[in-house]
């Protein structure tokens, strides 16, 4: 009945206001945490150079993944409008989650994103589903953050080497798990995953051994780009 109209609502000032407030909280938190971390870092013996280098490397590292997220924004924009897509990808969720939540939300009122025309109610239900589906992370993380610290302290005491082994094992498992699903897919994703790994295997020791600072900062970026290009060029 009122199809098409929902985008006026979805792109209205009010939605920008709601989205802007949420993004502002994320930025505010990042700002106060960074400020406190910088000053505490100086007090516990980190140097300005160490911290400034960390900041610079993080800018470089953010660029590649941010463009992947931007391409997800493009996919969401069409059906969810600007404000909601922009908010959802700067706040709590991730590209894959938001697509899934949006389609579950509209399906609950019988609208399939992409094939059926979106209705006001379907759009509203998508916003509800995305909100309800994502607060689980933040609620659990917020309740558990300080408790997990106590558990970790108790478990490893002041043994920093053990702490580092635990952290490395967790990272290896998390990213090994993510890689494994691409590795067994045996398609372009597999090529990209192996490509990224091999480039890192070459660049990382090279940068460390010769102490080439710019290469340390850019090696992940090169691994991403190289892995992607090899996969694009791969003949299947």
């Amino acid at each position, binding site marked *: 009945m009122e199809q098409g109209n929902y985008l006026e609502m979805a792109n209205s000032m009010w939605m920008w206001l709601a989205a802007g407030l949420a993004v502002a909280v994320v930025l505010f938190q990042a700002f106060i945490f960074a400020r406190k971390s910088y000053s505490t870092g100086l007090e516990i013996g980190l140097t300005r150079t160490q911290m400034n280098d960390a900041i610079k490397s993080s800018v470089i590292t953010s660029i590649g993944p941010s463009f992947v997220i*931007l391409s997800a924004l493009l996919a969401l924009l069409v059906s969810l409008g600007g404000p909601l897509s922009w908010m959802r990808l700067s706040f709590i969720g991730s590209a894959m989650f938001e697509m899934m939540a949006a389609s579950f939300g509209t399906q609950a009122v019988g609208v399939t994103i992409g094939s059926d025309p979106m209705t006001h109610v379907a759009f509203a*239900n998508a916003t509800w589903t995305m909100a309800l589906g994502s607060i689980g992370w933040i609620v659990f993380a917020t309740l558990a953050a300080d408790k997990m610290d106590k558990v970790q302290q108790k478990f490893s005491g002041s043994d920093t080497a053990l702490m580092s082994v*635990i952290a490395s094992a967790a990272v290896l498992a998390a990213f090994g798990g993510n890689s494994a699903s691409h590795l067994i897919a045996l398609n372009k994703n597999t090529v990209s995953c192996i490509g*990224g790994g091999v480039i890192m295997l070459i660049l990382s020791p090279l940068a460390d051994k010769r102490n080439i600072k710019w290469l340390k900062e850019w090696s992940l970026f090169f691994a991403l780009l190289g892995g992607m290009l090899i996969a694009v060029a791969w003949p299947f």
Partner: protein
Amino acid sequence: MNENTYEKIYLPYIIKWGRRTNWLGVLLSFGPAFMLAVVFGVVPPFTAILNGFIAIASAVGVVWFVEPISYFPIIGVSGTYMAFISGNIGNLRIPCAMVAQKIAGVEPGTKEGTIIATLGMAVSIVVNTVILTAGVAAGAQVLQQMPKPVVSALQLLLPALFGAIFTQFAIKKLTLAPIVLVISILVALGVRAKVIPGFASILGVVFLSIAIGVFLYKKGMVK
């Protein structure tokens, strides 16, 4: 005195403000739904909201617990507050935290590591917001003119990122990494064959890997 600054001043500050901002974030995530209801009078039927919630909760419910636990050892208390309010964790926050730690020459899981990870993640939040804001300002029309091959090629960045980060850590833990990789692949195959339930599997691999890591460390086989 160093000890005191981190434990007695830094952590309490982070916990106090982390809780405040994150609870506010929970509230504000309902902002769009609230606007639609109050300004436009659009409220879905309760059953539709419930069905949407049940569908998404059964798909990702386990991940609500898996991710905070798995990533905690790398990013610490402050990083945990930040990562889960800003999202895009595995594909952006964690890589930034880790590269920052590597460049600064600090170990994850230490005080220094937590502080550097926090700086790295804060920067990634700013960069990501700037790029997305520029993107959304450029508008759908401009973005949609991005050629299809470019869009599909961008999707191939992610597997490369996972492979590269795994390798970066594997280089430092040559004994542990192959074991974890083999377990991960076996579990992934198990999930594909529907022998192992999907999301529970990641947490299983994380705990198993930590257990093996600690065991090898105690035996002196991993440093």
